[in-house]
């Protein structure tokens, strides 16, 4: 459709239901809506089925263990129930999860994962990951998800638009009316008009320099929702994965050593050769939870006992050589023979029979995000969200394998409720001025000849995140970050200038647009971390090292009020279970 509603918009596209993000959550939402006869358009910043975190997983996906027996013919444990699954999620989320949503999740997980298997998803084996009382993990190669989901989308002839980067959600009369963004492949500025929008854009791990996740995971959906007036919650709980490669450049963020530590007995050592986990969890040591392993490693680094590249050492040298050699034969198929993705890790890792591997915590998952209710609605009518980057079921930390399940349960729910909404509601035509303002902001970096470059600013954002808002946090450092974020938002972002003015697939331009989102995310992360004066789940405060169930069974909600970030405390939803109201040492969960 031509007829742009603004002189800066090159093209207007129309659809009934618009889904941003094409992977685990987005694809499921689209399939559900298409089955309900709704006209859907799926857009993605990358290639459909070749972007996002979903395909990179290695991967366990959770359902209750009884269903493993009854629906999947696997040797699960029939004593398990959805209720027990729910309880384990609450223990790991430390009781600030939205309990009504957790109950729905535990109940619906098995049926939604069964859909995938019925569509041809190949399951390798079953796993019992820490934090689960019963084995609940179906082991699946991450690339299986796009293989199956893209085929299902094609079967339903769902329309895609690839290389489209949404920059802002358009709100008209308080209702979501579409999005604006750049078609990277053509350089066109688009307004996509829709009666409802579902954000399935994943996490925001790219604010850190060391991440396991893909490059495009820059928090775009969360930040756009925030700017449009949606509430975000639990943004202080960025999750890190321990024992990832931090050197050399080719493999930073690669989690092969973590897989080794999961499968083999390992020793985590500081530069003095001490097994520092003894200070944090003397019983379980390296078999402790992922958050405690990360926090312990980060504390060693912060206190000056780290390795040359800012991590700690992971050693297997106490094991016989032939045992280490044999492990490569029985590791799960995706990691057998020293493989991770396309890498032969022997090319980049020292020989584990001789040397320790330098590793560190890398940003891996986003526990918080856009606040949704059981219908995946945000507080803006017509704006829905699902998958990673929504705040609801994980609380202070997620249980292993439950991120993929989240996409499969909540993607379809978003598709269903948004479909019901668009059958009854039409979005009002947005004002020309609003579209014009958003398009102008988008084009700014291309038009300015002078100003901070997107590359410089990206480095500065990551420098702040790594230095001041890392795994172990302190009031003083968080305040330092916030002091720098002010001018970044006020002066640097609105003055960014790309070094090249080409419109088609301009990396500088893409980075500039992402940087705006990353600064919003960083501020939410720092503000919420500063406000929470206790330690819980994936958040550890050096200056408040205890978990406080007297005053902190609460969620922090963030909202944009006339350009100012406001943070408000709400009591956590304790609809099903209430923990002891006591103050205890960090890390005590049960």
């Amino acid at each position: 459709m031509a007829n742009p509603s603004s002189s800066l918009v090159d093209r207007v596209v129309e659809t009934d239901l618009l889904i941003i993000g094409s992977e685990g959550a987005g694809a499921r939402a689209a399939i559900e809506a298409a089955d309900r006869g709704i006209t859907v358009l799926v857009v993605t910043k990358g290639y459909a089925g070749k972007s996002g975190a979903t395909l990179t997983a290695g991967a366990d996906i959770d359902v209750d263990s009884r269903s493993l027996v009854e629906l999947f013919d696997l040797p699960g444990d029939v004593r398990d129930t959805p209720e027990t699954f729910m309880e384990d999620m609450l223990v790991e989320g430390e009781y600030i999860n939205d309990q009504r949503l957790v109950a729905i999740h535990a109940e619906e997980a098995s049926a939604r994962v069964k859909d995938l298997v019925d569509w041809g998803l190949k399951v390798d084996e079953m796993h019992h990951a820490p934090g689960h009382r019963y084995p609940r993990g179906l082991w699946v190669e991450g690339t299986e998800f796009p293989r199956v989901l893209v085929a299902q989308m094609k079967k339903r002839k769902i329309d895609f638009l690839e290389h489209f980067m949404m920059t802002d959600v358009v709100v008209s009369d308080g209702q979501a009316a579409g999005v604006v963004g750049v078609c990277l492949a053509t350089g066109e500025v688009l307004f996509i008009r829709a009666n409802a929008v579902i954000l399935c854009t994943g996490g925001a791990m790219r604010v850190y320099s060391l991440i396991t996740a893909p490059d495009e995971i820059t928090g775009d959906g969360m930040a756009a929702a925030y700017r449009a007036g949606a509430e975000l919650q639990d943004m202080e709980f960025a999750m890190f994965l321990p024992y990832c490669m931090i050197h050399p450049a080719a493999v930073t963020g690669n989690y092969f050593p973590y897989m080794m530590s999961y499968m083999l007995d390992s020793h985590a050592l500081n530069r003095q050769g001490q097994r520092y986990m003894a200070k944090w969890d003397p019983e379980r040591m390296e078999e402790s939870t992922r958050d405690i392993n990360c926090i312990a490693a980060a504390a060693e680094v912060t206190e000056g006992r780290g390795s040359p590249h800012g991590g700690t050492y992971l050693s297997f040298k106490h094991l016989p050589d032939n045992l280490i050699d044999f492990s490569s034969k029985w590791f799960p198929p995706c990691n057998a023979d020293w493989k991770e993705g396309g890498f032969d890790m022997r090319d980049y890792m020292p020989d584990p029979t001789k040397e320790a591997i330098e590793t560190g915590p890398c940003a891996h998952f986003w526990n918080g995000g856009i606040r949704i209710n059981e219908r995946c609605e945000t507080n803006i009518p017509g704006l829905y969200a699902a998958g990673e980057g929504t705040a609801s079921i994980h609380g202070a930390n997620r249980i292993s394998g439950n991120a993929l399940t989240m996409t499969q349960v909540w993607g379809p729910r978003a598709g269903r409720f948004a479909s019901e909404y668009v059958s009854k509601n039409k979005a009002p035509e947005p004002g020309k001025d609003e579209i014009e303002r958003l398009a102008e902001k988008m084009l700014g970096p291309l038009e300015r000849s002078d100003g901070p470059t997107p590359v410089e600013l990206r480095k500065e954002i990551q420098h702040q995140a790594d230095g001041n808002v890392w795994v172990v946090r302190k009031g003083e450092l968080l305040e330092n970050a916030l002091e720098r974020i002010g001018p970044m938002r006020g002066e640097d972002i609105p003055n960014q200038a790309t070094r090249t003015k080409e419109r088609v697939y301009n990396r500088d331009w893409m980075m500039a647009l992402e940087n705006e989102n990353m600064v919003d995310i960083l501020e939410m992360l720092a503000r919420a971390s500063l406000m929470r004066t206790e330690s819980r789940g994936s958040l550890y405060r050096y200056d408040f090292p205890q978990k406080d169930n007297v005053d902190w069974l609460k969620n922090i909600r963030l909202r944009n009020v006339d350009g100012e970030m406001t943070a408000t405390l709400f009591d956590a939803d304790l609809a099903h279970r209430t923990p002891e109201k006591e103050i205890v040492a960090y890390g005590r969960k049960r």
Partner: protein
Amino acid sequence: MEKTGKDSIRLRIKRDGSLSEEAARFDEYEVPRQEGWTIMNALNYIHEHLDPSIAYYSSCRIGKCDACDVLIDGAVELTCIAKFERDVTIEPVEGSVLIRDLVVDTSRPKRRKMGKLLGS
């Protein structure tokens, strides 16, 4: 191709702005040799320090998404896992619609969609 000195590696990259109608050409970049780098690390270096206009795709960085494929000295390889160890010529993969430089539009239904958007 000529051998370069020990301290740097030369990348000859096909540049083609098909949509902006720039003529196709090869540009050469000299990147300091680094241990433990991939071609992707070198492309990031070029974008950051030598030529901000270069276009290439990156996502997972571990050889799983399969979307950073290019021709390296004529063979299809993924830039995020291909070792950065010798002088190379890099071109976009064949058989797909070119977006710009090393980025292509990979599949037919998608190509149709793009055509529609371009008004062609």
